[in-house]
């Protein structure tokens, strides 16, 4: 799976069996009354990793973060940080700092005093505090705003103060709760790269909670996808996208076409599936066994749409009619309706300004894809 996507990573301690996890959740369960927020969850995060917890609201991602910060204690199980069991250690003694979703800047203090707050708690010398604050202000490009109060700043500036305050103490781990949630789209995209830069520069371990899959894909080294308090998959962004482990993950990250069917034959990594729409040959059979119900998942950009019938012998071709067309500038998304009623999405990059094979509404169209373009999901 190393060649998935186009990114080859040089930083991948999770592939090294001798590497020791920096943060470790061991069979952690957290209940609030009858509600189980986190269910018997185990997870390892490595030093200097940019790790994202991704999931819809209520999936338990924020609870995980709050347990790491010390605001909640696990009902059972334990959390280790750098070999130390964190149970019973109050938040003010943990070597982690958090950037809050609401930023939680102290309204009665200036930007400078906000950033210095944590340092003062450590009893750091005054001159040293001043130096560190100046350094932090420079890092987040807010030097001229040092004397302002939070309410005199814009949303983006507040976000950066919160960040500076959280990293000022050089924590072992920086926790970020929806760090970009309150920013508008353009600012969010800029800030994503700033955050990645900052993480590289400081060499800290970042754990970020987000519900925005694009944000997680852009920033994180690895993503844990959570649902109902359980980990669905932990993998790099490319793996999550190209080799989702389940229907849930495939549907949660990006757009996907799912063909439900039954495995009729299997040979090595290849398998043949009988679906409503037709026969599909796939070369990513994973653990599918003959006769089992599986799903074949394929991303829209991996499906080719054509007005002409593919040459006989071409695998995985299905006939349908163009149901809808969305022209997005850089690409066009075709919705093709198969005879069984299923609508398949296929996107085509508009590499040329004029299409040689123009398709329009209600035209008969053929979709086709290579046997290695999709994956078979057993869960």
């Amino acid at each position, binding site marked *: 799976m190393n060649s998935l996507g186009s990114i080859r990573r040089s930083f991948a301690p999770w592939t090294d069996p001798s590497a020791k996890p920096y943060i470790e959740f061991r069979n952690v369960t957290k209940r609030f009354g009858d509600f189980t927020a986190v269910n018997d969850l185990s997870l390892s995060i490595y030093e200097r990793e940019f790790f994202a917890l991704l999931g819809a609201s209520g999936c338990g991602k924020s609870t995980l973060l709050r347990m790491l*910060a010390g605001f909640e204690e696990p009902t059972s199980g334990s959390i280790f940080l750098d070999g130390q069991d964190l149970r019973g250690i109050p938040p003010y003694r943990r070597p982690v700092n*958090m950037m809050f979703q609401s930023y939680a800047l102290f*309204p009665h203090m200036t930007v400078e005093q906000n950033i210095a707050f*944590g340092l003062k708690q450590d009893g750091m010398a005054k001159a040293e505090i001043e130096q560190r604050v100046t350094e932090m202000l420079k890092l987040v490009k807010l030097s001229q705003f040092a004397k302002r109060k939070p309410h005199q700043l814009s949303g983006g500036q507040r976000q950066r103060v919160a960040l500076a305050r959280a990293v000022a103490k050089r924590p072992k781990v920086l926790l970020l709760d929806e760090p970009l949630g309150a920013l508008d789209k353009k600012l969010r995209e800029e800030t994503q790269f700033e955050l990645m830069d900052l993480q590289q520069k400081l060499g800290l371990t970042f754990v970020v909670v987000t519900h925005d899959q694009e944000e997680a894909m852009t920033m994180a080294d690895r993503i844990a996808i959570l649902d109902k308090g359980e980990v669905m998959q932990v993998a790099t962004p490319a793996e999550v996208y190209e080799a989702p482990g389940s229907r849930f993950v495939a549907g949660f990250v990006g757009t996907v076409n799912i063909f439900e069917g039954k495995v009729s034959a299997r040979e090595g990594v290849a398998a043949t599936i009988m679906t409503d729409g037709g026969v599909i040959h796939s070369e990513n059979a994973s653990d599918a066994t003959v006769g089992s119900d599986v799903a074949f998942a394929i991303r829209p950009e991996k499906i080719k749409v054509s007005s002409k019938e593919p040459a006989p012998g071409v695998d995985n071709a299905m006939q349908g009619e163009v149901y809808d067309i969305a022209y997005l500038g850089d690409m066009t998304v075709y919705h093709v309706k198969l005879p069984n009623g299923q609508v398949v999405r296929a996107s085509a990059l508009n590499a040329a300004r004029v299409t040689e094979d123009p398709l329009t509404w209600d035209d008969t169209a053929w979709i086709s894809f290579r046997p290695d373009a999709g994956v078979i999901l057993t869960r």
Partner: protein
Amino acid sequence: MQRAIAALTSRLVIVVPYLWLLAFFLVPFIIVFKISLSTTAIAMPPYEPVITLSNGIGAFFAQFRDLHFDNYAWLGDDPLYMRAYLSSVVIAGISTFLALLIGFPVAYGMARAPATLRPTLLMLVILPFWTSFLIRVYAWIGILKPEGLLNQFLLFTGIIDTPLVILNTHTAIFIGIVYSYLPFMILPLYASLEKMDYSLIEAANDLGCPPISAFWKITFPLTLPGVIAGCLLVFIPAVGEFVIPDLLGGSQTLMIGKTLWNEFFANRDWPVASAVAIILLLLLVVPIMFFQQAQARAQEQGK
């Protein structure tokens, strides 16, 4: 035209509170002030009329020459008044502080209670107002007197052998004032605590600040406007309080409200009583102005 009417209407709306202030504060103040400059007389009302128009314009202006501040000088000469003012301020101050000590944890608990429970708790705080103030103070006599409920209970449980003397002491006054004015302390405190963002405390903890220290560094400064409002709402009426020291404090208690009452009704010396009232007012206007300033400052801070 319509805009002119709208502008006029908005002016009128502003005028209403000023009219209210004029009719119910400034006019009575001037009347009392006028009486304070007069001399007692055996008459109805019991003082020489100060300023009237009944004797013609010439006499009207001549009246101003007869005005004197003798009553104020009298207040300075007799140490009784000084002591009464001082003792009132001290009693009100101590009571305010006690009310703050009790009120803050209560307000904090209410603000942290589940949102569904808060209206009920708020209701419980306001509930005593549904009974007459006078009856509630009388009830305390029944509780605090030597053969009262409290002593009976303490004797019954064996904590004490002889009844405690609480009624007719300063302790009884403190109890009475704190009990009566506690809601005025709790409500503004609750209002400022409730709107405080709890994640600020978590942020402080996260940055290495233990809970008690976080209280003094974050919670207290942010709720200071509520603390000041609550303290003034208790302190100001407590200074002039008459019923509680009269009923619970016994005869030897010296408070300015009681002195004032005595001057008016026992001595029938309206001019001196008015002078007492004017000085009391000035005494209270100072903290009110202080409060106004604090509020303006808080507003400027945008909190």
